[in-house]
């Protein structure tokens, strides 16, 4: 079912990301992802998956190395161009990252912000523009009746669907999801992964999902990339992945696990002091 398309969606050459105090989050990442491909990222926590995710959706810039999106060098992008590129990449986060006090419709229509003028988006908070688009997006994730509810009144799984509806409205070329199912209960996890795959197939979008669950990655994705300690540990078709590779990927983590996690948390708090 893989769409054959030679155009490169992403090309990463020798990407490094170093945070304050010389904490190396990513080290010499080389990677190519074609249009319409579906890729899973797996690896222990603290391996750099989230940092990679933030580089791919242009939230962060690499410290060194080159990143091309659609053959466009990201380094040269600024201001309006940077925002336009971001608007072509949809992101789904682990904690869905919705604005809790807004109604569902506004969180869904936030997908339009890259297209809307500032004044128009402000007015939409009072009188929603594009109600029909929002309704359709919610219909697709299976909860059209929640349109006017306040977002913080929904359950975790429902909020994750709202976040996916936001991506539907955004209608990007690429969908990135960073651990989209680790904060929803297991029975919902595969539903949400399947929803993402369905969307990417129906609308021919590139899909890159980082996952905690190796099973989900192997079950639903034709290509899996293992990331460990900021480097690509393997990058293969799913059928070629062996038990040994997976063991290697997660090995040493029973001892080091808590440490890498502690480091990655510190990196986060140094670079982005949690403001909460």
């Amino acid at each position, binding site marked *: 079912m893989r769409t054959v398309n030679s155009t490169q969606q992403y090309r990463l050459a020798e990407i490094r990301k170093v945070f304050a105090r010389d904490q190396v989050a990513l080290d010499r990442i080389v990677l190519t992802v074609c249009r319409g491909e579906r890729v899973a990222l797996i690896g222990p926590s603290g391996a750099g998956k989230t940092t990679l995710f933030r580089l791919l959706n242009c939230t962060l810039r690499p410290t060194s190395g080159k990143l091309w999106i659609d053959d466009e060098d990201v380094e040269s992008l600024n201001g309006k161009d940077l925002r336009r590129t971001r608007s072509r990449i949809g992101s789904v986060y682990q904690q869905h990252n919705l604005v809790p006090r807004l109604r569902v419709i506004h969180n869904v229509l*936030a997908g339009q*912000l890259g297209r809307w003028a*500032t004044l128009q988006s402000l007015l939409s908070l009072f009188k929603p523009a594009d109600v029909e688009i929002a309704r359709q997006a919610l219909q697709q994730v299976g909860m059209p009746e929640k349109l006017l509810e306040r977002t913080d009144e929904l359950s975790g799984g429902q909020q994750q669907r709202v976040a996916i509806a936001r991506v539907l409205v955004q209608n990007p070329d690429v969908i990135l999801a960073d651990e989209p199912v680790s904060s929803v209960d297991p029975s919902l996890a595969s539903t949400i992964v399947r929803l993402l795959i369905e969307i990417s197939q129906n609308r021919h979008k590139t899909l890159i999902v980082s996952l905690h669950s190796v099973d989900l990655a192997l079950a639903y994705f034709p290509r899996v990339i293992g990331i460990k300690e900021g480097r690509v540990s393997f990058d293969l078709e799913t059928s070629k992945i062996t038990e040994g590779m997976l063991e290697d990927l997660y090995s040493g983590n029973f001892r080091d696990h808590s440490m890498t996690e502690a480091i990655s948390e510190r990196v986060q708090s140094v670079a982005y002091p949690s403001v909460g």
Partner: protein
Amino acid sequence: MKESNPSLIRPSDKSFFPYIFTALFVLAFVDSWRRADIDPVVFFEKKGQEALWKFLTGMFPPDVSWNFISLMLRPALETIQISLWGTLIAVAIGFPLGLLGTHTLAVRGILNDAELQGAPVRRGMRYGLYFLARGLLSLFRSIPEFVWAFMFVRAVGLGPFPGVLAIGVAYGGMLGKVYSEIFEAVNYRPLEALQSVGANKLQIFFYGWFPQALPNFVSYTLYRWECAVRASAILGLVGAGGLGQQIEISMRMFNFNEVLTILIILFMMVAAVDYISAKTRAML
């Protein structure tokens, strides 16, 4: 608390520090007693007691004649009006400056990383604006509203207007500082998501920042309004209109019963404002 060598703070270790500290502490109070003219003997001397008695009995009964109260209605209303416009101006000053002075919005964190990495000129300009806003805010609030009123009376003449300006400027400084703290305390994750959609800073502000900050924003602004009602009563003492001016006049004429009436009116006004803002906060 800074860590210090324990031996320094244990008196048994032949350290002079605790003795010196205690001596300075006592000296500060003794010296201040003298220089602040603290004189409790006043309460026991015949002359002092007479003055106190005259003042207290003079207040009773309060002047509740319609004649006087009707005269006070206008200044009372004026006090409220000063506080309303003062607070409005304070918001108009504090809001934009508070925004510019918000660390995570202006210069640091995940919303600025991509834009400012490798762009020293832009970074410099952002920091310049940030420090300018911070500086203005602290200048505005470090001068008490009373002193601002004093200066504005000289600048624009007697009346309620200098009171409005004084509250606007001084409270603008306080509001701006607190607004920036409220904005900084907002959960940044939804903001990161909005940014990744391609939203610009203002859109991120309207969709993510402000909705999250709204309850704190409203309740602190209302609290400042309460303070402004009290303040605008005092500002009248330096000639900036409102009830304060009436207190000053009655005091000078030794009409203490009128003073008590005005204090009662003031008390009722502040209680009413308290009530209104509590109700509004409960609605959020």
